[in-house]
């Protein structure tokens, strides 16, 4: 009996060093859940913040250790061999994106933990289950309740994000997708202020997310029908062999999986959720979502497209070219008409997703490093920008309407100055990371042929449109006089200050001296197939 089982079942060989960063984050999240159950309310905030920060830093250390000790010296590829029988592949791109996500997580956790002198994290409601405006809610506020469970939820999401770009088969990818998404759905609904808007965002995100997950699964099923396997290398081999009995399932399968992935990055026409969710979610979560989800999802897109279905690119690429073009145009044009800062940044994030897609479509190794550099640069700028949005208040609640930012430059020169700088980075002005990043994705695209050239020209025209949007905010902050001084920047604690300072510093450094990070991205750009 036992021999028969062992013959049929070969246990997976796990490279625990390679998996350690993800495991650490999962453990920290579990620990957080236990804290929530057993630690008294008064010390929960401190315990949760400590666990979260220590967990992320430990995962970073583990990742750095693994990257250094497991380096494969041949062909300049830094990375590990596949682990867990190829279901999780920790190679160069996976490592780079995981490191990026951990950095985002660290900054986002700091901004999440901002209390502004209150008892719990300022952005979150004291009691998520209470009806907005109900007596229970008032009661919860009175006794000093807080939703400290946002920290373990946040960590689960981070772990999902780390797994997503490392997934070597479509089912693991799906699991990672859900692990990253479900906590985010919840976190979106927990805003302290404007709770109905927040709950609407949460529900909308959940419904549309579930819908897109279904697309993803359906695509996976079709690809399984085509290749007889969900492993990306097997799908690739089946495309080359052209021996499948169900050749017709390939293109629909690829497109359906891409729908699920493109939904997560907010590409047109799967972008409808973005503005509502960005606006309704608690601001630190919006920042984290904009940076982290995008990084993870583009990591997964890169792996799926470059490892799994690159040999069939002539079949699916035209469709994605159209998506990229639409994403840039619609993101840029609609951001012009926005009057809410968070919605504006949401549309700008759609346009940026379009720019990144241009890099993905180059189908060159340069494109991989360009995309990875772009998501790192964009994410750091975004987290800092949303952290600043969370600081500008009128009467205690966030002043997100553009008119409320009028004349901010005169009253708060430093905050407005930093925000203006970040906006210039979004606009892609040289000497900011935004410019370097755009260059990094547009160069391989231009090298890749006519479609790439057209996309680049289109991308540059859309950049010109988005510049108008950012410049308009600078005009509001600096060139318009305002007599109303009820809008003020509240004094941030050291947490938010560190987030904003780090994000801004990276935005500057990646603009002036990007060579070392670009080199890292380039060395980490080879997928293990």
């Amino acid at each position, binding site marked *: 009996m036992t021999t028969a089982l062992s013959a049929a079942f070969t246990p997976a060989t796990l490279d625990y060093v390679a998996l350690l960063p993800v495991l650490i984050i999962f453990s920290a999240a579990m620990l957080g859940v236990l804290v929530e159950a057993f630690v008294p309310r008064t010390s929960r905030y401190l315990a949760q913040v400590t666990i979260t920060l220590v967990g992320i830093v430990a995962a970073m250390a583990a990742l750095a250790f693994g990257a250094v000790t497991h380096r494969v010296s041949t062909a300049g590829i830094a990375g590990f061999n596949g682990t867990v029988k190829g279901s999780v592949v920790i190679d160069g791109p996976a490592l780079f994106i995981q490191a990026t996500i951990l950095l985002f997580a660290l900054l986002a956790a700091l901004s999440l933990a901002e209390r502004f002198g209150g008892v719990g994290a300022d952005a979150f409601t004291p009691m998520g289950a209470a009806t907005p405006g109900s007596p229970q809610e008032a009661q919860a506020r009175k006794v000093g309740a807080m939703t400290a469970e946002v920290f373990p939820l946040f960590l689960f999401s981070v772990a999902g994000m780390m797994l997503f770009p490392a997934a070597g088969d479509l089912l693991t990818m799906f699991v990672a997708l859900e692990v990253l998404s479900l906590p985010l759905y919840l976190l979106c609904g927990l805003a302290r202020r404007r709770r109905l808007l927040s709950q609407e965002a949460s529900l909308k995100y959940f419904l549309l997310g579930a819908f897109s997950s279904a697309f993803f699964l359906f695509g996976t099923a079709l690809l399984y029908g085509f290749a007889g396997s969900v492993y990306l290398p097997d799908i690739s081999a089946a495309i080359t062999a052209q021996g499948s009995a169900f050749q017709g399932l390939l293109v629909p399968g690829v497109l359906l999986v891409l729908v699920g992935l493109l939904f997560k990055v907010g590409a047109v026409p799967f972008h409808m959720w973005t503005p509502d969710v960005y606006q309704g979610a608690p601001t630190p979560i919006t920042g984290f979502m904009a940076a982290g989800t995008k990084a993870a999802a583009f990591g997964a897109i890169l792996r799926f497209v470059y490892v799994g279905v690159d040999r069939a690119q002539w079949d699916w690429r035209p469709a994605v070219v159209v998506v990229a073009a639409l994403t840039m145009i619609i993101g840029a044009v609609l951001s012009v008409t926005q009057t809410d800062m968070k919605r504006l940044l949401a549309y700008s994030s759609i346009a940026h997703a379009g720019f990144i897609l241009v890099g993905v479509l180059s189908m060159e190794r340069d494109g991989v*490093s360009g995309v990875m550099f772009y998501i790192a640069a964009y994410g750091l700028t975004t987290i800092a920008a949303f952290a600043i949005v969370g600081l500008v208040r009128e009467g205690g609640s966030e002043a997100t309407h553009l008119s409320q930012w009028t004349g901010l430059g005169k009253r708060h020169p430093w905050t407005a100055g930093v925000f203006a700088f970040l906006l*210039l980075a979004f606009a892609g*002005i*040289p*000497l900011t990371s935004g*410019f*370097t990043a755009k*260059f*990094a994705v*547009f*160069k391989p695209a*231009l*090298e890749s042929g006519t479609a790439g*050239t057209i996309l*680049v*020209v289109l991308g*540059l*025209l859309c*950049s*010109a449109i988005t*510049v*108008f949007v950012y*410049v*308009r905010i*600078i*005009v509001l902050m*600096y*060139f*318009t006089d305002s007599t109303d001084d009820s809008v003020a920047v509240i004094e941030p604690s050291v947490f938010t200050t560190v987030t904003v300072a780090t994000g801004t510093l990276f935005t500057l450094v990646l603009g002036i*001296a*990007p*060579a070392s990070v*670009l*080199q890292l991205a*380039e060395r980490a750009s080879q997928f293990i197939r």
Partner: protein
Amino acid sequence: MNQFPWLTVIGLIPLVGAVVLWLLPASLADRAKHIALGASLVTLVFAVAAALQFSTSSTSKFQLVEEHSWIPQFGVSYALGVDGIALSLILMSVILVPVCLLAAWNDLPAEEAHRERHYFALMLVLETFMVGVFAATDVFLFYVFFEAMLVPVYFLIGQFGGPRRQYAAVKFLLFSLAGGLIMLAAVIGLYVQGPGGADGFLLSKLAGIQLAPGTEKWLFLGFFIAFAVKAPMVPVHTWLPDAAAESRPATATLLVGVLDKVGTYGMIRFCLELFPGASQWATPVVITLALVSILYGALLAIGQTDLMRLIAFTSISHFGFIVLGIFAMTSTSWAGSSFYMINHGFSTAGLFLVAGMFISRRGSKRIPDFGGWQRVTPALAGVWLLVGLSGLALPGLGSFISEFLVLAGTFQRYQVVGVIATTSIILAALYILLMYQRTMTGPKPESAAGTPDISYREKWVVGPLIALFLILGFYPKPVLDMVTPAVTTILTSIHVTDPAPAVGAAEGSTK
């Protein structure tokens, strides 16, 4: 040839000055403008010292060369170097900055004194980018400076300009950025077509590469449109009158006198050197547009009622001359255009800054609000006449020589064009003399009684400018000697020869 990084230092001093201004403690805030002026003067000293290192007989194309790898993944180097054209433009810029700072000394009223350091720091940052853009010998680096310099100007107009400053600042930025982004596509495309590698953006690597004619035309257009917006040529000139009219005179000087030169400089350095075939293909259209700019700018200048707009339109006309000279592609016209860029910088500075002195006295930019001021401020009116005459290219002043060289050089190749362009000399006399007549002559206005005449500070603003008009008018040899080798080198490298027996720039210098 020497190890000292002259160009980097010249570029860095103003930047350091700007940082010092921003970090200045509040107790020293009223010293901000002194520090700014000091930094710009130190820059000038270093620039003159660098110019003394420059040899006009050198055989190498660029001198004072610095080259370091910057972003090898993109093929980008931090590469600086100057030839005669670039060096003369850098010298012009670093001379104009202290003059402008001095002119801007009392621009901000006392209640806005706390913004003063910001105002002066922005101008210093702009100086850094101006030096960088003329010194860059790497196409990517040039692009970085080209775009980055928009930001300080945008803030200078938007924060310190006139009533319609928001509109003017945004229009300026959008026009420039749209042009710049088109150029970015061409910049990347050029690298893709070139040899590539870790230093593939160096001009030396890209000059003379073989391009398919179609590709060459597209790349040429990408660069040319950006430069035409910058220069500004009709029909993409409309941002300039707004920007100039809404900015402070010192800002307008730097904008029109220096920034716009990047457009014409770029045409020489990039369009013609990198895409000689496409440049010849485009010549008929460009020459036509230049001619239109010359005449249209002059005609509109005659019709203006706003002093600053009038000067802006004269500049559009003058830029037409510079572009005409460049695309006539004779050694005479090129020497003329290069020299014109310098003279136009100084004479526009004179016009804007002296106009600014009148505007601050009268409190209005409208020409009908003046009249008879020659009796109120006689010395200032005399200065006004002198800078005006420089603007209309009176013989004996520097601008005459350059205009003559451009026309003579153009005539060698395109007789009809040369003749038509010459008529604008009459128009120039009209717009300048009419302006003088309307503002200065007539009965003494009663309301202006007691207005002070030119002050000690203002004498220091106009003194250097008038001295330069006269020096360059009577003894242009140093500048012409500096630009001629560069002109010859470029024209030889793109295989263009003069149609008639070479007249040479030396003839112009003896006039």
